[in-house]
């Protein structure tokens, strides 16, 4: 996997993190000691090589300028975060550059070429900011204030500005409580600014607490109330002057950094100790991704997966050729080496596809695909993946697009319950269209479409929900007044909306909802009625119906915002919205640090909602809802009682709860745990002696035929009345082992072949596998079901079938992805093999992750999934450890962005 990770690891470095992207990522390539001569009053220890503790704070960093270039008109952003926000020196003659310093003379201005989107977006979301500088003011007379670092448009419109007002530092920050000019400002004490080198940090947290530190020491603290949701998206970053060039600052910059969060005092001290030179590796020197690797992973591997692996995988290995692995691919097959690096024309692989001999009985490669293969072979056949995961590549096209997620029906119900305390389950289940399964789950975002029925239902449900609310009491949580004035209604809407819509409202949203209340007032309505209709509007808002997240940026993964993360955590772990504790943690900026997030996750996993959510996963993964419609042939199964279907569903869910939550066993134990839960009816069906009047736990240690999910009726019934080896084998291949197989050729008669005297299901399967046309694929999955032959179509156990044929449960299987065939003598041995299989454990990781993310996983996710898997296994392989690893991974902590148009 090492090579596979290269691209992703490089991206992670660029994005400033590892598995836990939101925490500081220790850097391995430490820079030389700081030049104490350049920073006169920096501590002496800067002369020695920095230790780990000296390394600058990286978490939350957005832009970083170290002024290392001594020539040119560009000041490089070396944060390595997102798209570099490089600065342009507007009048080169008015600055002087030396390595590590930039002196601004009269009228100089250094500014970004475009709006500082990554800073603005991050601060709008976080409500917190830090501006850090190493600088030397030229004098103590500059006033205006002179703009040292500014994010603004002109003299009266800004988001934030660090300035010099004679012998004080002055910071103006625009919030919903300050003016568009950021006034009132926060100033350092008089005479705190001197014409000498200094480390100056302004940091402000989400609650409004703003501090200025000089040389590591706090010199002022003040509250700057309000939110930063009103920050303009249009402003550029400027150094040394106002963007309108009328507030010059004179002095020298050594370092400027901007963070999208507040720095704690220890962190400020850490950066002060680190000095003005970088303790982190600049993005510009991050290891570049090999173009050859990239070409293989993005172009060639998908092509091989699409056209070749159906027959030339480790399992099928037709002609003894396995093209899924580097070693076996280079070794070749019966006809000799398939790949001759550097020589496409001599490669059997290319010859066979170029002549359309291959793929056999399948559409030929397009001219473009052939050219691509030729290019790869001619360029040396660089192979950077240890194994080509056909299943991952198969999802590539489907998963394209970053879909926002509509709440599923169950999430909608849970969200209403949490937001307004109303149980709307009955009504919602009755009138909301059910979510349709796609890629194995009904919460797959791309398939969470909307139709008129949804809109009607949302409108109808909004009314019904509000009908059930004591509106006055609900509103009283947010205001003690019943006036319909701006003064009362706007804060009410802002606070109520923040709770119901899972994060702070922007000004335009407050205004929009306020419009509802004014309309009600204009129609003679009172306060209660106004709140009522505002609630109805909120319950139909896109921010309620969907999980809205920022998806725009620079095309690179961005850390998700605090409230976005709060929602991700809650919907993944609970299937519902964040609770008050999570929202408070987001309010306080306490979802940045790994330990803080882990603390929340631990708490959340103790909550009954986490158990409920895990049961939803099980029901989805195994498609347990299918059981509601199970109708076996009554003539063939006269003992079938349709209540058995519900018993089977209950069995599987209670079994899971026992293994995963009560015993906290590794998830793989689901395959061979020797226990189950059954009603007397189901126990009898299984041949067990009923042990209680109702549902009871059964120890299966003395029942060798049963034990584990695959021996439960809920799963065995996937084979239909005929107990189809095909259906059962495909289920195990795809849902337990995460393998893939091509669809059958068009027009193929797939009518199940009935058993007969002398011909069992296994015999029928063996005939298919022996068939040249079918065997290539069927050998991949039918042997997986051999161990289940003794279970009939409704899960009852027999030694002989209805014709008296003796049944078998021995066999051999090959795990997808490779290895030799492994034999087993009994069904129980098969279950033990599966439970011990890394493939099964990884497959469970993928399945749970897919359900958590609500999208199919693709090959680009593979390296992160590998980390999740390893972390979860290290922590015991339990459901809780897996969920923790998932939510702490980049798949949850980061969001992919699309470049701003």
């Amino acid at each position, binding site marked *: 996997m090492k090579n596979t990770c290269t691209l992703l690891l490089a991206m992670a470095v660029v994005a400033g993190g590892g598995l836990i992207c939101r925490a500081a990522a220790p850097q391995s390539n430490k820079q030389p000691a700081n030049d104490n001569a350049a920073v006169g009053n920096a501590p002496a220890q800067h002369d020695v090589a920095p230790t780990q503790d000296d390394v600058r704070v990286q978490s939350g960093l957005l832009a970083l300028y170290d002024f290392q270039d001594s020539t040119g008109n560009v000041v490089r952003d070396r944060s390595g975060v997102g798209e570099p926000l490089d600065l342009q020196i507007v009048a080169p003659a008015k600055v002087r550059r030396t390595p590590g310093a930039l002196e601004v003379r009269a009228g100089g201005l250094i500014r970004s070429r475009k709006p500082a989107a990554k800073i603005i977006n991050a601060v709008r979301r976080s409500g917190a900011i830090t501006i850090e500088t190493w600088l030397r003011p030229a004098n103590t007379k500059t006033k205006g204030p002179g703009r040292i670092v500014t994010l603004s448009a002109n003299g009266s419109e800004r988001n934030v500005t660090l300035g010099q007002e004679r012998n004080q530092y002055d910071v103006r920050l625009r919030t919903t409580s300050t003016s568009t000019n950021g006034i009132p400002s926060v100033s350092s004490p008089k005479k705190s600014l001197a014409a000498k080198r200094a480390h100056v940090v302004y940091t402000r947290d989400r609650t409004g607490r703003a501090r200025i530190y000089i040389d590591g020491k706090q010199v002022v603290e003040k509250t700057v109330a309000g939110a930063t949701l009103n920050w303009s998206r249009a402003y550029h970053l400027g150094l040394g002057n106002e963007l309108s060039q009328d507030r010059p600052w004179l002095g020298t910059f050594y370092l400027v950094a901007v963070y999208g969060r507040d720095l704690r005092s220890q962190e400020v001290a850490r950066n002060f100790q680190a000095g003005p030179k970088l303790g982190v590796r600049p993005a510009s020197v991050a290891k570049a991704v090999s173009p050859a690797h990239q070409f293989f992973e993005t172009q060639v591997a998908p092509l091989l997966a699409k056209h070749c692996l159906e027959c030339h995988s480790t399992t099928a290995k037709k002609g003894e050729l396995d093209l899924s692995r580097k070693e076996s691919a280079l070794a070749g097959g019966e006809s000799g080496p398939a790949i001759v690096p550097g020589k496409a024309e001599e490669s059997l692989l290319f010859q066979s596809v170029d002549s359309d001999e291959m793929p056999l009985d399948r559409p030929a490669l397009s001219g473009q695909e052939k050219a691509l293969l030729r290019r790869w072979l001619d360029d040396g056949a660089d192979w950077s993946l240890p194994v080509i995961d056909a299943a991952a590549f198969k999802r590539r096209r489907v998963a394209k697009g970053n879909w926002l997620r509509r709440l599923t029906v169950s999430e909608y119900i849970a969200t209403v319950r949490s937001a307004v305390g109303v149980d709307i389950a009955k009504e919602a289940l009755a009138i909301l269209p059910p979510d349709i399964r796609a890629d194995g789950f009904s919460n797959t975002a791309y398939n969470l479409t909307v139709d008129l029925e949804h809109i009607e239902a949302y409108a109808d449900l909004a009314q019904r929900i509000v009908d059930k609310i004591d509106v006055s009491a609900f509103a009283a949580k947010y205001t003690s007044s019943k006036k319909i004035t701006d003064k009362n209604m706007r804060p009410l809407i802002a606070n109520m909306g923040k709770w119901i819509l899972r994060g702070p409202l922007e000004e*335009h949203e407050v205004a929009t909802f*306020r*419009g509802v209340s004014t309309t009600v007032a204009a129609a003679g309505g009172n306060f209660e009625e106004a709140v009522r209709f505002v609630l*109805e*509007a909120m319950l139909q808002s*896109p921010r309620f119906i969907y999980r809205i997240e920022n998806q*725009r940026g620079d095309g690179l993964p961005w850390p998700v915002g605090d409230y976005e993360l709060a929602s991700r955590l809650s919907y993944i772990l609970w299937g519902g919205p964040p609770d008050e504790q999570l929202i408070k943690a987001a309010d306080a900026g306490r979802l940045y640090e790994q330990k803080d997030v882990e603390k929340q996750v631990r708490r959340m996993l103790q909550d009954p909602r986490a158990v409920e959510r895990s049961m939803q996963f099980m029901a989805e993964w195994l498609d347990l809802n299918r059981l509601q419609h199970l109708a076996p042939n009554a003539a063939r199964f006269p003992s079938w009682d349709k209540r058995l279907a519900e018993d089977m569903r209950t069995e599987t869910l209670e079994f899971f709860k026992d293994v995963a939550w009560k015993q906290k066993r590794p998830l793989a134990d689901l395959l061979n745990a020797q226990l189950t839960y059954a009603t007397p009816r189901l126990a009898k069906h299984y041949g067990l002696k009923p042990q209680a009047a109702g549902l009871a736990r059964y120890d299966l240690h003395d029942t060798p035929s049963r034990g584990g999910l695959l021996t439960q009726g809920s799963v065995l019934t996937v084979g239909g009345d005929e107990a189809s080896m095909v259906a059962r084998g495909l289920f195990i291949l795809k849902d337990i082992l995460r393998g893939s197989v091509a669809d059958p050729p068009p027009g193929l008669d797939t009518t199940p072949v009935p058993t007969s005297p002398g011909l069992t299901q296994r015999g029928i399967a063996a005939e298919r596998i022996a068939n040249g046309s079918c065997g290539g694929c069927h050998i991949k999955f039918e042997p997986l079901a051999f161990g289940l032959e003794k279970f009939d179509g409704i899960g009852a156990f027999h030694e002989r079938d209805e014709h008296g044929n003796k049944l078998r449960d021995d066999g051999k299987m090959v795990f997808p992805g490779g290895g030799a065939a492994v034999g087993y003598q009994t069904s129980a041995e098969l279950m033990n093999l599966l439970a011990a299989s890394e493939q099964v454990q990884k497959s469970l990781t993928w399945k749970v992750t897919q359900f958590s993310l609500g999208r199919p996983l693709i090959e680009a996710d593979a390296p992160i999934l590998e980390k999740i898997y390893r972390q979860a296994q290290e922590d015991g392989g339990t459901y809780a450890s897996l969920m923790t690893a998932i939510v702490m991974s980049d798949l949850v902590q980061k969001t992919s962005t699309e470049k701003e148009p």
Partner: protein
Amino acid sequence: MKNIRLDRRTALKGMGAIAIGLPLLEEMQVAAAEQATAPPVRAFNVFFGLGIPSPLQAEGFSDVLEPLKPLAKKLLIMRNVDQVRCDAPGINAHYDGASGAFTAEPPDGEARSGGPSIDQVVRKTHYPQGLPPGMAPTIVAGTFFRRSRVGRYVHSYNQDGSVAAAMQESPRRLFQRVFGTYQGKGDDAAVRRRELRRSVLDTVVEQYKFYTGANSPLGAASRARIADHLDRVREYEQRAYAMQGQDSQAPSAPARSELAHGGRADPGGEGIDITLEELTSEWRLLADLYALAIQLDRVRFGSLTFLAAGERIRLTGEYQYEGKTRFLFDDAAQHNATGSKGCSHEWWHQFAMKKKNEALRAHGHMKMREIAYFLQRLDDADSLEPNGKTILENSMITISTESGDGRHANVRRELSGVFHAISGANGRFKTGQILDVGAQGLDVYNTMLAAMGVAQQLGPAETPRKSVEAILA
């Protein structure tokens, strides 16, 4: 102007004789029967925001009031109308003044008037059993962008001080109110709730539009999904709120307004940017529709608002009058300020007799031009009635505003000279004069009511009454 003038002839021609909507047919038959004898009793209140400082009223038609001059013979312009009694200390000067317009009462809380408005008192007296079938009891409409406190923009109030009808704040809504089926005789609860839910739906549409727009935080796939959702919401809106009873040949409904409405129209008192073209196009379409509703005898009572009390807009655009450029509006630039401080409202705060007050004068002039536009629509050929007079002449149309000054420094100065004008009400009031009435608004209104044959008097019973004979014909 962008709008195509909608008039009675166009509407009737479009409707045709056969396919005419039943409610309209009924109402017109009723109207025709009534008009054969005498013009119906009608009363409308026309409000404009921010007022005209008393000293400027004194200049007659030479400046701010100039646009009313063509209608001078059909109006009685009243100066020195004292609304000081409407001051409710500690609330809001704009709100107090606006609440006093047409009621002579201070507000009763933030969403109620201290008493009924004159149009509703007349309605109650003359139509105690309700209006004829198919006719809206009251229509309240307006173009405005300041929403906090209802009294700023609603100017028809029931006896108990509650608003007389739901506000129609876009031409499309007013169109539907005029041309759609009107169910029942009164605003019953179900109809009202339905209208409010429609406003909720408007809000929902606004939000979905935001997430499909340029400032959406969403990526392409998600925006497409939200756009799908938006399409479905609109489909739902069409189905749930489709106009019933409208003839297919009736004039097309106005396009959806591009101007901000609802909450977007008032970002917390910070003001909005708007061009003169946008403002007047929207208003004139609304004024046309309201006039048409009167001409078709769809409505006899109600109010129309052109900009709310304490309105905050940052207006831009070249203001022409009679083919000549009179002023270049650019409030924010001229104030050199953004947000609320860059709004036209500030011209009123800065009013001083020693100054030229050019911007204030231009704004005031423009407002009079637009008020005159509406009045002229009731005075054109389509408004001629069997008695040979126009609707403007036959109806009691009262024009008023909130303030006589604007500097908020002195209640007496601010509320003692509030501009008023009335039409003749079929010979009941004097017209063709500018009159210094020097009387309380309460007495003026009560005098008007008495002239309209209304026994009820506004204000507390113990208040001494003083008939303002000077306004009577």
